[in-house]
């Protein structure tokens, strides 16, 4: 699920969101059964689930932090990483895989200084992996937002990304 609409938030804005979260939590005090609902609301608020929010949720709902993390890490919908303004997806489908997809991913990770599933500190890019985008003839392929790039060379990745602010 995308969390667009929240993706331009800065650190300072995020701080002010905790007051909002406190208001949400008021109606769920000691109600462990509400965990998933509360996580949904929190992710809607922040665009992701920051650690501090998870700790507040655990304390207010009176569930262990581990129970909260168990749920958060189980469901794909929940993310503990903020999402960036631009989403990079490296294709690791069969064709891309054999034509150098893993190398592209590795280089992108190196260039951006983040791992698969993470977001850069300035929230400019999120990096992820997809399994086949139907562009096998262009393998190895990569998508940035809605733009597809084929026959990606590891040396050209940064050049492609420069366009995206």
């Amino acid at each position, binding site marked *: 699920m995308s969390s667009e609409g929240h993706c331009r938030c800065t650190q300072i804005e995020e701080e002010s969101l905790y007051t909002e979260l406190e208001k949400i939590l008021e109606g769920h005090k000691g109600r462990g059964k509400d965990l998933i609902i509360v996580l949904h609301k929190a992710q809607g608020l922040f665009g992701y689930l920051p*650690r501090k929010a998870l*700790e507040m949720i*655990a*304390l207010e709902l009176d569930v*262990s*932090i*581990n*129970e*909260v*993390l*168990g749920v958060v*890490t*189980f469901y794909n919908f929940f993310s503990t990483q903020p999402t960036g303004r631009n989403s990079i997806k490296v294709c690791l489908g069969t064709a891309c895989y054999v034509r150098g997809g893993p190398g592209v991913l590795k280089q992108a990770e190196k260039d951006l200084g983040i791992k698969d599933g993470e977001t850069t500190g300035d929230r400019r890019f999120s990096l992820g992996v997809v399994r086949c985008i139907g562009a096998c003839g262009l393998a190895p392929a990569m998508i940035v937002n809605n733009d597809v790039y084929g026959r990606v060379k590891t040396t050209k990745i940064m050049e492609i990304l420069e366009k995206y602010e």
Partner: protein
Amino acid sequence: MIKAMINNTEIEVPEGTTILAAAKKANINIPTLCYHPDLIPGGQCGICVVEIEGIPGLKRSCMTPIGEGWKVHTHTPRIMATRKQLLDLILSNHDTDCLTCIKNNNCELQGLAATLGINSIEYQKMEEKLPVDNTSVSIVRNPNKCIFCGRCIQVCSNIQSVNALAVNNRGYESAVTTAFDAGLGNSPCVNCGQCVVHCPVGALYEQSHIEDVWRAIHDPDLFVVVQEAPAVRVMLGEEFGMEPGSLVTGKMHAALRRLNFDAVLETNFTADLTIMEEGVELVSRLKSGKNLPLITSCSPGWIKFMETFYHTLIPHMSTAKSPQQMFGAIAKTYYAERMGIPPEKIVSVSIMPCTAKKFEAKRPEMRASGYQDVDYVLTTREIGRMMREAGIDLREMPDEPADDIMGEYTGAATIFGATGGVMEAALRSAYFLITGRELEQLEITPVRGLKGIKEAEVDIDGVKIKIAVAHSLGNARRLLDRVVEQLKNEGRSEYQFIEVMACPGGCVGGGGQSWGSNMAKRARRGEALYNEDRSLPYRRSHENPSIKAIYEKFLGSPNSEKAHKLLHTRYFKRSPIDGKIIDGENTTERR
């Protein structure tokens, strides 16, 4: 009753009996891996599968109740091939450096591989090495050994209600871990070590102090004193193949002397001292009516649990240190003074059934002597290993007494190791302190045994006091929720005195005890302590001549200013997120 056939043997068992249990009755051993007799079977590993005629597929015998007229087969070629394949898959990403593994010769996975006749690993090994969690001062977790049996999680969440360990992520990524992968030292883990004693492999074990202790022993400049907790003397025998519940006090002293400890002293001596301090505390609270119920403070797993989840009860806690820490404070003051040894030359080692004691020894406030009161803590397993390393077979040892002036103890001290023991010991002395007469009926049987929460009413000279005993933190939670509720609503609790021990069965079931523990063995160890109690010349702490001597020559009286400085402590509020101290304030007033 249900009649069925297992491998052509007719059996008759009560309804609800699992196939695994029914087979056991017919002397048929179905191999298991994740199964543990004290836990609810989860069926994670699938090793115990069996075939049932007329029912498609294989069934997990640990969690399938046997049905009327069933014909069950436990060792057909199909089953045996399945088991081997399952084990192969487990071994394909298990770190099999068995020779250097802490569990070498004690590993349930290793045992199973031998039983099933595994002579090669069919699948290509996964070489990925995950970092070992060394964040805790008590417990190490090596995820490369983990086989996902789920026992540690079940014991940590269901039995102990701590929830420090859980499964995070899913599919191939899933891992048994702490929240945020922060490590046990940055989690609400209370260091009880029940995960350690329930782990079938070498994924969880204690932070070892063996090398430090060898170094101290071999240093001619240092004077190394050793203390042994009550529960160790009924456990150590098992490390050397003796029957569960063998009492080896004398042999243990002899073996420790042969390890070249300079003085072999007794935690039981300071257990008597604890009773003197806590007994006087109980009497004074009963008289003033303030901060009742009094709650015992000997179990360091319980202490951290209380600080994390029940800090509103801090004013109710006994301020008396645990026997281990009293020993530490006294060894580097009283003992040093009387024996003419400079305290900075004394290295204080304790042998404990416990992993939480390692955390307790390192608590920054535990430096009443001016030094770290207890330097090193060894579990029963570790001292067993050291004895074997030194070529000592405990079974061949003579019986020897402990050394003076901290070696003498009473029956009241030795029962500290079993659930209800501290309560019973305290009441034996409190009765005397209140009435000036000795309690005739010494054995307070309602507080004995393995019932989760035990209650009783004791008559002290016409005054009735209500007591409760809980062992395992899940039971403690159940009892204390009631107490907190009563205090909140009525301003008082129905109880006047409560004992809590973190581990199921008390210290005999501690997280530092030998591998392969279960409740049945814990019960036999507890029995052995009560037998020792009956065999001792003194059975009340205040009768111990060495205790009388320490008050006469050094401490003055129980709860004196000196006693307070050395033998009492304070508690802190901790976060249930990471177990760290929240406000550094001294949260209990030293009276």
